[in-house]
């Protein structure tokens, strides 16, 4: 079956071991996690996990059901079925030789990124956007020489419709 990327937004009880239950479910059943992002919500007893996974339609159905079966999982929302806003944050440290500095800044400007640290031979750039934007940005910076990257997983919320 054809595989595609799914983005799940999962609300869970904010309790010790919940993340390990979810990670264990994925490893034990051979499901794949592309990225994972966890933080509390406005309700201190509830955390939101945003998870990206690549699989086929039958597997995503099992993933959603199995997640829902975990006692500490409150809701499982498949954002891929609806319109949603997705963001991922990355810090990219790139070689900045004098002759390349202007070009890097142009790219940063085009992508509406920000330079958050500057040295004699590097820039550290903050980028926020969906995974497509990240890929495009990194492919342009690559020829300059990327030193290192730190990236979060995707986070996302469904768009409110018709309001």
């Amino acid at each position, binding site marked *: 079956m054809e595989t595609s990327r799914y983005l799940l937004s999962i609300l869970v009880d904010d309790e010790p*071991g919940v993340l390990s239950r979810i990670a264990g479910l994925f490893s034990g059943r051979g499901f794949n996690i592309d990225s994972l992002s966890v933080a509390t919500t406005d309700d201190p007893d509830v955390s939101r996990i945003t998870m990206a996974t690549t699989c086929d339609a039958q597997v995503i159905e099992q993933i959603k*059901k199995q997640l829902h079966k975990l006692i500490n999982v409150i809701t499982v929302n498949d954002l891929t079925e609806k319109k949603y806003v997705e963001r991922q944050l990355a810090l990219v440290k790139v070689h900045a030789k004098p002759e390349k500095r202007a070009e890097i800044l142009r790219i940063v400007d085009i992508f509406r990124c920000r330079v958050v640290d500057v040295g004699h031979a590097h820039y550290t750039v903050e980028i926020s956007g969906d995974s497509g934007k990240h890929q495009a940005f990194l492919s342009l910076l690559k020829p300059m020489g990327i030193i290192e990257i730190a990236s979060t997983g995707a986070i996302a919320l469904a768009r409110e419709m018709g309001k």
Partner: protein
Amino acid sequence: MKLTGAQILVKMIKAQGVDTIFGYPGGATIDIHDEIVRHDDLRHILVRHEQGAVHAADAYSRAHKTTGVALVTSGPGATNTVTGIASAHADSIPMVVFCGQVPTGLIGNDAFQEVDIVGITRPCTKHNYLVKNPEKLAATIQEAFYIARSGRPGPVLVDLPKDILQAEIEFQMPEEPRLRSYKPNYTPNKKQIAKVVQMVKDARRPVIFAGGGVISSRASEQLTGLAQMGRIPVTASLMGLGAFPGTDPLWLGMLGMHGTFRANMSIGHCDLIIAVGVRFDDRVTGNIAKFAPHASIIQIDIDPTSIHKNIPVQCPIVGDCKTTLEHILALMEKQNPAQLTVDRDPWLEQIDQWKQTTPLKYDQKADIIKPQFVVEKLWEVTRGQAIITTEVGQNQMWAAQYYHFDLPNHFITSGGLGVMGFGLPAAIGAKAACPDKLVVDVAGDGSIQMNIQELMTAVENCLDVKIVILNNRFLGMVRQWQEFFYNRAYACTNIENAPDFVKLAEAYGAAGFRCTDPACVEDTLRKGLDTPGTVIMDFVVEREESVYPMVPAGGALTEMLLV
């Protein structure tokens, strides 16, 4: 009222209607055991190995239709429960396992007899808890029982640090648990019910496939009603045996790898399967691509993950088996009965023909006992009324095939996980739950040795269990695979060097009988069953007998190896 954690634990267990727990003490649980012996209305059965406690609690659940409880200490006590917990998880058996734990201040310090049992059992429990606050102890215990027995049942583990058990706190009976993240759905969708009735009307060759869910939701009566109203033949998984009377003319026998010819052929030729409380395990489907090629499938299950997991179904229904069958029956009663049984005669005739041409069979000669003969005689002598537990392997399959279960909750076996050593402690648990019932463990000479120490538990507590050993001096099921698929190279399966089971029984204070002559099988059974106390009956049987029919792993159900 101030109570210690240990006192709260005992109080909460009793409040759940549990009268017997199976346990083994250790440093971390002394406080609990010290408290338990002060309560005449809570019996503690001291097992001889923690694995035995969990299997006994499992069988206690199944026979008593309540929640079994096991109590063990930290570290090795806790790790010894893992096999039993995994078995109960695979079979969806409600159970609560309480483990002692090192004091909270030592957790994470690699203390003596410390193990992260919550981490270890996370994938094989329905849920588990580490209690870190004595204020939450009572509510956690109540929640553990609630989760274990509601929805799709399963084992729940509660890890209890020693300081929590010793803490004194003000006790209040907690309110009924309400979890925002756990609300099992018992009621089926009405539209789907109408669809089921229409599919029954449209079917010409329907089959009901019953599983453990029918037993655990106590839906045998409704299932039997459905079968009779639609004149629909019934097969079952291993876990579903007893859900439908094994002596009813509509009974097809068990389905799957060692299912009957007519059950497997019926699935291969039917046009409708009504699957109730089953999960389409690989042992019943054979090759999935060739499973029921002509059939539409209705699947009823309380657990949405069971639906569409292995087999695509045309009519999924998430709901309690009993409630759903009641809805179906109510709607069927409003239909013209003739429309529910269109063309049923030719289908039932075809099935009868399969039964006549290829029944379950074995050839009992005069010189050596056939294991199937022992089980069939056991069924006759006990008039099918005994609770049968089994070990795992050939003994389990022969018990399933030849003890024609008429009643639910009378066949107690480790179905999903297939645990050797299950049968003896399970028989003890069943006997503790149903002291008036005859309880027989159908065992092999291999697996009986895996928890043989529990003989002492049975004898000490006067839990009179009868053990029938089908003794072929082989690890028989593996030997059978070696015979069929490995050129009869019997690597590591010959266990001729065995204890004398009669003397072994006597050493534990039980009685032992040996039988080597087919003519004496019935007498030995009668003598063994009539002898008071725990009894081993050692039947020396044909060494290289195999279980037939057999669907080779990965084969289609209709491609069986026959005798």
